[in-house]
């Protein structure tokens, strides 16, 4: 047998994930030390995890389209729209909570499907298509109930949303379950692998019988569905919703996967990285509250970190090209 010497991987995703976990732990430790342990209290931990669920979902929602090299600008407003539809179904239509929750998620999946079909059928760049649908959904969001707020719906659902098991918030457990499902989908399911193949090298994927169009549509559908999940989590967690929900979710939806090591060009995803990055962004929020920092600084910090993460990836690509060229 002839053996060709194998080179060691120059860069592995696992490295990014370990780094992120390390950053999260150090960050949390610093927070604990400088706030006289107030972030160690059960209440604070519960709050951190409760409000981590939605950022995790929107991050994974963005990750699903990044997997095929696309972007979805409508993630944030779609989350808000699904929340409004879900609340409207309970308050004004009178549907039982469980049915309203399912409908809220289906609305998300439906909008995602439309996004995907528009991208494939018109051949217009996904960025532009979702910019358009973002604007439309933004309007629809207000169409549901104007600027008014829905509240006092389905006490059972809200109790469930705010409940916890062994001190761990239910919504966080749900988010973890969904994240595991997404991870299994991309790691093991044939369909998930096809999405990644298409994102990694569309021409090679086509030669191997993978339909790139189908991959695009499915990625957008999953993205919409996860935004829907984020929407119903918001409904269950907050007890009252209005049309401003989702306004502040677009940047976090990109920040989590990009910091988490997901390739912007497609083909590489990291569920663990995305969730850890969402946690770090959450800790920045906590720090802002603890130290009473002007909230504007938070956006600045997160924006700078995203830019830094993209730059590091870019440098890696350049270096790898250098080292492989003759």
């Amino acid at each position: 047998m002839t053996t060709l010497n194998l080179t060691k991987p120059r860069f592995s995703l696992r490295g990014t994930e370990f780094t992120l976990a390390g950053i999260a732990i150090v960050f949390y430790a610093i927070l604990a030390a400088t706030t006289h342990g107030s972030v160690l209290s059960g209440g604070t931990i519960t709050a951190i995890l409760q409000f981590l669920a939605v950022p995790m979902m929107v991050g994974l929602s963005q990750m699903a389209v990044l997997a095929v090299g696309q972007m979805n600008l409508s993630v944030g407003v779609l989350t808000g729209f699904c929340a409004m539809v879900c609340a409207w179904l309970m308050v004004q239509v009178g549907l039982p909570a469980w049915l309203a929750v399912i409908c809220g998620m289906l609305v998300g999946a439906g909008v995602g499907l439309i996004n995907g079909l528009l991208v494939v059928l018109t051949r217009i760049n996904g960025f532009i298509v979702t910019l358009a649908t973002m604007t439309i959904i933004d309007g629809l969001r207000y169409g549901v109930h104007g600027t008014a707020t829905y509240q006092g719906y389905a006490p059972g659902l809200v109790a469930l949303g705010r409940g916890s098991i062994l001190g761990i918030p239910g919504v966080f457990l749900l988010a973890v379950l969904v994240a595991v499902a997404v991870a299994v989908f991309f790691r093991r399911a044939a369909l998930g692998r096809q999405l990644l193949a298409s994102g990694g090298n569309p021409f090679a994927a086509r030669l191997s019988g993978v339909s790139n169009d189908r991959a695009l549509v499915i990625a957008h559908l999953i993205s919409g569905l996860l935004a829907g999940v984020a929407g119903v989590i918001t409904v269950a967690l907050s007890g009252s919703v209005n049309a401003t929900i989702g306004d502040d979710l677009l940047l976090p939806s990109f920040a989590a996967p990009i910091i988490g090591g997901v390739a912007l060009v497609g083909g590489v995803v990291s569920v663990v990285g995305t969730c850890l990055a969402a946690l770090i962004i959450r800790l920045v929020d906590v720090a802002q509250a603890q130290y009473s920092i002007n909230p504007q600084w938070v956006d600045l910090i997160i924006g700078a970190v995203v830019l830094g993460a993209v730059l590091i990836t870019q440098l890696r690509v350049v270096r790898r090209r250098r080292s492989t060229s003759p």
Partner: protein
Amino acid sequence: MTSFIAEKLVKTFPGVRALDEATLRLESGTVHALLGENGAGKSTLIKIVTGVYQPDAGRIVLADGTEGHFSGPQDAQRAGIGVVHQERNLIPAFSVAENIALQAVPKRFGFVDKTAMRDIARRCLSQLDVQLDIEAQVSTLSVAQMQLVEIAKALAVDSSVLLLDEPTASLTSDEADHLFAVIRRLRAAGKAIVLVSHKLEEVFAIADTVTVLRDGRSVAQAHKLSDYTREQIVDLMVGRAQQVVELDKPAVDPTAKPALELTDVATELGHADISLAVRPGEIVGMYGLVGAGRSELARAVLGLDRITYGTVAVHGKPVRIGSVREALHRYRIGYVTENRKEEGVFTEQPITRNMAVTVWRRLARLGMIRQRDETDLVRTYVDRLGMRISGPTQLAGQLSGGNQQKLSLAKWLAADCDILVIDEPTVGIDVRTKAAFHELIVGLAGSGLAILLITSDLPEMITLADRILVMSEYRIVGEVPNNHRYDPTSQAVIRLIHAAEAVTT
């Protein structure tokens, strides 16, 4: 046993008959070389056989006697035709095993059956007698390893025909030897292997039969390779009936100071020891196979890639050119690109803007450009180059290929360039326009421009150039003085290329 016939294939592209009743006949258990110079139709033939293109006429007959109609690459794969393209077609973030099994991923309940996937990968790799970590991510492999993965991938769908397009182009000689061992193994297993290669050495080392394409026709059809000498194969590839048009051109003053001179130049792209000089009024040709590094050298001279060693002198003065902008405005070097559509012409813009883009700075008064100045400019060059346009505001994209190429040339002339690098000037242009273009280029040289001409069209080269530099593997391997007679000159050029390869392989 005949395992595959592609018979009398015809494929026409606008202005070009790429394949003209070419035939490829393959026997199982043999290695078949497919040879031909640049533009002979090899790529088109491969694309038809693998289902990427559909032929205009002709038929494909498979091993079982049925006719094959491939409406896409999948159909060809299903018919047992595997291919390893020149460019890599793997998913970088996937494991070796998953890449090998990608065309027929084993599934259980919608999930990838990893055990079955690994079995497929092991089976295919063991057919090649290759040991590779099937869990390794493809992006961590060397080029040679990736190539083996691609061959294994082609075997995963049970191919009886395997096409290898320039498989050794990026391999070291040890790696190539290993690849040949793999090819011999596959031949012994009864596969029909098609080897497309420019390297005659390796063709003679491994192939049993040969098909030679020239101008879209098969001039040797599945002949035994041992009946030929290398010289005879070269003669077949080059042909004898080429036309070279005589054009009147004043002789170049050999004592004149070179307009552009390169001495011992090396680049970050891998060029080494490049020395050449182009004098005013002279057309110096650079010939070589695709990938020899000619366009890349032009890019480096123009400041698009870095020159790491040696000197570039313009009119005798050593210069350091950092950007195309500097090349144009300071040293008056223009670059007529090979890729008109993407690099040479703004197709969605009117002719005026296309032509004036290089001289906006000169035309501008207080930062503004008067339309009349642009229109005057267009009138001048439309007359001078004999362009056919409907009006100065016609969109460049609406012009014919020849007129687009003239437009691309006009903007450099407008910029008063005295050195022009012209890259593949007549690709995709019909014969009549081509002749007009040749006269134009010779005329430009006659008026004192120094021209560095890159073309893969040998008759064109012999028509135009005063001297021909032959490039191979990023080096200049020789120079042929051009007497404008096709047979001796073309053979001298081709021999230089193959001699260079015999040394390096």
